[in-house]
Structures are given as C-alpha cells and as structure tokens.
C-alpha cells in the first residue's frame, strides 16, 4: 500500500482523466486482472509494461469496453472517465468507444481505400454534415498521424497496400478522426520495423498534446522514450505505478526491478 500513496502523491496535482478502482477481470475461470487501482492523467502518455500474459492488454481493453465483445469475460470494479462510471448500465459502449479510441497491436486497416478508412469513424458517428467537412476531417486526421504528405496523392488507393508503418499510422489517423479524448494503444509498434517504430513513437509525442494516451508495450526502452508515467503489471496485478524516470532508475518493488534488469522476461 506504500506504493499507492506514492502514486496518489505524484498524480494528485494533475487532472485525472481515467480512474480505476478495484478492477477485477475474469475470463471464464481465469482471474486475469486482480484488484487494479490507477489514476491516469490527461494530456500525458502513460505506459503499461510487464511480461507477456501479465494482464496489461486486458486492462487496456477494459478502458473502452472492448472486452464486451468476448462473451466469457466478466469485469468487476469501477472505471471512471471524467468521473463517469463507464460500466454503468446507461452507458452505451458505442458512444464510449468514440470517446476512447484504440489502436491495435497489428495494423488492421479495413480493406477499403485510405480515405474510406479514415472517414469510416466520422461517417458512422455522423460527425460531418457534408463531403467538404468529411474531406477536412480526413485531411486533419492524416496530418495528425503524420501520414498526409505520403498519401495525399493516392487517397483512393487501398489501405492494405501501404507499408506496415504507414498502415499503423493510418490506423492512428482512423482513431483520431472520431475526435477521441483518450487514445489506447495496444503494443502499436510490435509488428513494425525500427524505422516505422521511430515514426510512430514521434507521432505519440505529438498526440500527447491533445489526448490522454495509454500505451501498452513490452519494450522498456520504448516506454522510457515515449511515456511520462509507467505502470508495471505482473501476473494480473499492478505492482508499481509512477513517473517513468523513477520506475526505471529507482524501482521500489523487487518484481519491477527483476523485470527491468532482465531477470523476468
């Protein structure tokens, strides 16, 4: 519990965007997440690290209720966004996911044109009243995802024809297009080569200005490069949470230290 006091102290002076209290997740009989409590700050990049199977992705998927699509998943506890419980009966996951965008591990552009990929979200949410507005949204989103210059001449080309790094940035543009407030990224660079990874990491830096970004990564160096806060997950528990610099230089839990020094992989 000492750790938690540390967390509250450091985060307390900023605006809390997402607050989780006593979150448990079960997949059938498996207890995947055990009592996670965390406050995630606005306009900041928060990284979840930990060995594979530690529950970091599972927890991430709770934040926009993607776990709803898995029939055997069961969630207990509260997750608040802007003080509203997202698991409240009145909350429509569809509306929630427009507010909390998500980028997945493997780039998953739809088999449509680049333009239609980005325009898909605004279209279904009815964000544009006419073609001109839609064009504007697409352009802005592609610019924010630092992809505009590369694709502006071939917006009608299929999104699946882009390179891996471009595809992932297209997916980011797609997520940004619905004007989310929170952006969840589930190991967004794990399927990319180092150059593409670099591009995406730079992008994350910029995205931070507008969104609260939560990124799951298995690369500690990436966490240290892009994030301001880091949470370490181990076997479904959140072991430690704090300033990224502190976690890496001065971990206070033995398990975190083992992980960072490479004793758990």
């Amino acid at each position: 519990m000492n750790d938690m006091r540390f967390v509250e102290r450091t985060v307390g002076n900023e605006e809390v965007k997402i607050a989780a209290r006593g979150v448990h997740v079960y997949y059938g009989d498996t207890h995947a997440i055990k009592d996670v409590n965390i406050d995630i700050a606005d306009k900041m990049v928060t990284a979840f690290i930990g060995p594979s199977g530690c529950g970091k992705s599972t927890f991430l998927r709770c934040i926009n209720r993607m776990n709803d699509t898995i029939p055997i998943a069961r969630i207990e506890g509260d997750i608040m966004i802007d003080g509203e419980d997202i698991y409240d009966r009145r909350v429509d996951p569809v509306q929630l996911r427009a507010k909390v965008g998500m980028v997945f591990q493997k780039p998953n552009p739809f088999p449509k044109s680049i333009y239609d990929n980005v325009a898909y979200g605004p279209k279904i949410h009815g964000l544009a009243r006419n073609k001109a507005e839609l064009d504007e949204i697409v352009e802005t989103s592609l610019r924010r995802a630092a992809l505009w210059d590369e694709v502006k001449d071939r917006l009608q080309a299929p999104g699946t024809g882009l390179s891996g790094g471009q595809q992932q940035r297209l997916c980011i543009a797609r997520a940004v297009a619905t004007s989310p407030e929170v952006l969840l990224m589930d190991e967004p660079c794990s399927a990319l080569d180092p150059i593409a990874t670099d591009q995406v990491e730079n992008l994350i830096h910029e995205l931070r200005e507008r969104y609260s970004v939560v990124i799951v990564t298995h690369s500690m160096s990436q966490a240290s490069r892009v994030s301001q806060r880091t949470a370490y997950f181990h076997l479904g528990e959140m072991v430690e949470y704090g300033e990224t610099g502190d976690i890496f230089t001065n971990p206070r839990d033995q398990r975190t230290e083992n992980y960072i020094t490479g004793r758990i992989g």
Partner: protein
Amino acid sequence: MSPLWLLVSIAVLALIGAVIGRRKAMASAGGDARELHSLPNYYGANVALLVTAPALLVLAAWMILQPMLIEGRVASIVPDAAYQDAGALNLLMADVRRVAGGLDLAVAQGALTAQEAHDAEATDLRARLAEIGVAVGSEVDTVILEAAQRYRVLDSRADLARTVVILILALAGFIFTVSRIDRTYRARNSVELAVLVLLIGASTIAILTTFGIVMSMLFETMNFFRQYPASEFFFSTTWDPSFSGRGGASELGILPLLWGTLYISLIALLVSVPIGLFAAIYLSEYADKRFRGFAKPLLEVLAGIPTIVYGLFALITVGPLLRDAIASPLGLGNSASSVMTAGLVMGIMLIPFVSSLSDDIINAVPQAMRDGSYGLGATQSETIRQVIVPAALPGIVGAILLAASRAIGETMIVVLGAGAAARIDVNPFEAMTTVTVKIVSQLTGDTDFSSPETLVAFALGLTLFVITLGLNVLALYIVRRYREQYE
C-alpha cells in the same frame, strides 16, 4: 471358356502362386524369415499380382474390343442392298446378334445339336427360337442368318483365342515371378509399386469421368448439328418439337428454355440470397451458442433433403397455394406450376447452401477487422454492413455464383413445379420450362438416337454443362483468391 470361368482360373492360379511364392522365398532363406529382404507374404503377393494384373487388363480390353471388331467384320459381309441407312443397319445387326445368341442358347439347352444349329434353315427359325424364349423382331431372312452364322464362327474363334491368350499371360506371370524369387529379391518394393499404380489409377477416374461427360455429349451434339442448324438452335425463339409427325419440321430453339431457366434461377436467388445471407450473419455474429447449436443443424437439414421432396412440395402445396391465393385472384394465370412456384421452392432449397457458404466466408474475416471497427465505436450492424460484408464480398459473390450454378442445373423441382410449356414471358405466374426439363422429356419414353428431337437433348446438356462449369470455375477461382487474401 466363359469370362467368369476365366476369372476363376486366374484367381486359382494367383492363389497357388501366392502360396508357392511364399514357400520358395522361405526356402531360399533357409526357413528363417529374418534373412529375407521383405516379409514372406510380400513374395506371395508379388506372384499373385503379376498373375492377375496383366491378365485382367488384357481381358478387360478384349471384352470391349471383341464385339466391336466382330461386328465390323460381320457388317461388311451384309450386302449394302439389305439396309438403307445407319439406323437400319443397327437394327439389322441387333437381329443378327439375337439370332446368333439364340442359336448358341439352343445348343446349350440341347434343343438343337451343334450340327443342326450350323445347318439351320431360315424359314422356321423364328418359331424355333421363340420356343426357347428368344424373341426375334422380324422373320429371319437369309441375309441375317448368314451374318449370324458368320458371327457365331468369329465369336467362338475369338473366345477360344481369348481363353488361350489370357491363360498364357497368367502362367507367364506365374513362372516369371516365381523364378525370380530369392533371398535378396525386393518383393515389398515391387508390391508397393503395384499398389501405387492402383492408387494413381483410382485417382484418374475423376479425369475420365469429366472426359466421358464431355465426349458423350460432344459426339451426339455434333450429330445433332449435322441434322439441325446450330444458328437455329442458339437463336430461335421457338421450341416446338414434332415427335409424332415425323418429317414435320421441329423447331428446336434453346432461347425459351434458357429464359425459363434464368427466370426461375433469378427468383430462387432473390429468395435464397437475402435469407441465407442474413441467416449466416445472424448465426455467426449474433446468435448465442445454444441458439446456434439448434438452428444451424435445422437449416442444414434443408440441404440434406432430396430435390424430389422439394419437387413434390412445389407440386402439392406451393403451386396450388400460389395459384389460389395470388395468381387467380389477381388474374395473373391459373396454372399451379409456374416460374414463381419453382423459383420459390428452389430458393428454399438454396437457403442452407448460401448460408453455410457465407458462414464460412464471414468467419474467415479476421477478428482484427472487427476489433478495429468496434474500437472506433461502430455498432455490430455497422461493423457487419460496412466492414465485414465488404471484406467478405468476393467470397459471398463466389457463393452466390455457386448457388446460381446449382439453380440452373436443378432438375426435379422444375420438372414438377415449373411446367412444360416453352415460352418467353415476364409473368412469373405462367408455366414456363427449362433446359433440364426438356432434357428429361426428350430422353425419356420413346427415344430414337438418329432423330434431332432426341439428339437435341445432348446439345442442351452440353450447353448446360458449359454454363455451369463456367460459373463453377469462376466461383471457385474467386473464393480461392479470397481465402488466400486472409491466409
């Protein structure tokens, strides 16, 4: 020796060979099976194989070729004056065969001695043959009798030659293999090679079948086009075969039949594609496990029901219902069999076909696509309509093409539900007919394989085959390309 006895002798020889082969192998190894290259049984099997395989192959070829050769020889001695055309010659040769067979039978039953049969007179032969139960079409004349006697001579000579050749072959195989047996002989490899050849032979049957289908229809179609102009067949809008009044010109245009076929298929697809597709979507995306476990097999039962059952359903239930409830009150016709009847029932038949194919295809769309869409806040139906269905579209198109091919080739439902009147009309409550219905009606009952009215069925069959083959190849190609995309 009759073929049956030949087979028995070959089998006996093979069995003896197997025993001897095994013994000799064991003897060569001094009674110790471990000294042998292969297990002792392989040596026996090897002998049996070499005794049977060449003998059986030659026997089969002989059985096919002998009647053809003999008929050719016998036909050549029949004077040209005895028949007018190829058809008449065929009938005449049938009588020749029957007389020859009858004489043989009479000898076998003891009604005639061999000498009597040889000297038999043409005059009372028909009656005498009738006594032993052989019916000959017309009175036996000298031409036929002469030919029949020639036939008997040639046939008995050929039978004798066949027996000798086959037995020599079997014996040669026996001696050859037995002589080669010793301790180091690789009997297993030899047996396995033979088995492999057998396996390859079995798998070429698929090619032979396709070849047989094409050939059987191609020759008769060419015959047909020699008697009836191809342009008329493909472009005439009238179908009016004159069966009774021979000589009265038939009009055999395929267009009215194609129209009926396509119209019925269109209605069938209009019924089955939306229902099948929505059912597949519901079952794969929405239904919980219990509902799926109960509804999916029930839908698949529809696919296991024979088409004759659907035909009867159209005939006794759907047809009268449509006529009494819709067609008659609206003045659209008063026929129970109609395009609508056949189309609706065929549509029901195709529902499980479309739904199970679409189900497979929808399930092949990667989960990442769904996640991407849900992650953006799309509802399930938006995801299905705007992401999954477009992504699965090529596969779904392939499935629809396969269903269309089924609909076009379907026979029993249209035979019982669509009617027999060839007409080009847009009123779906009128009876129309299809290519398959006409194939059935032209090839059942009295058929005469020299008249265009019968031969047209082969041209229809070939057209049907080409259309469905085209659709199938296209569909399989599309589906395969689609699957590769996600693999």
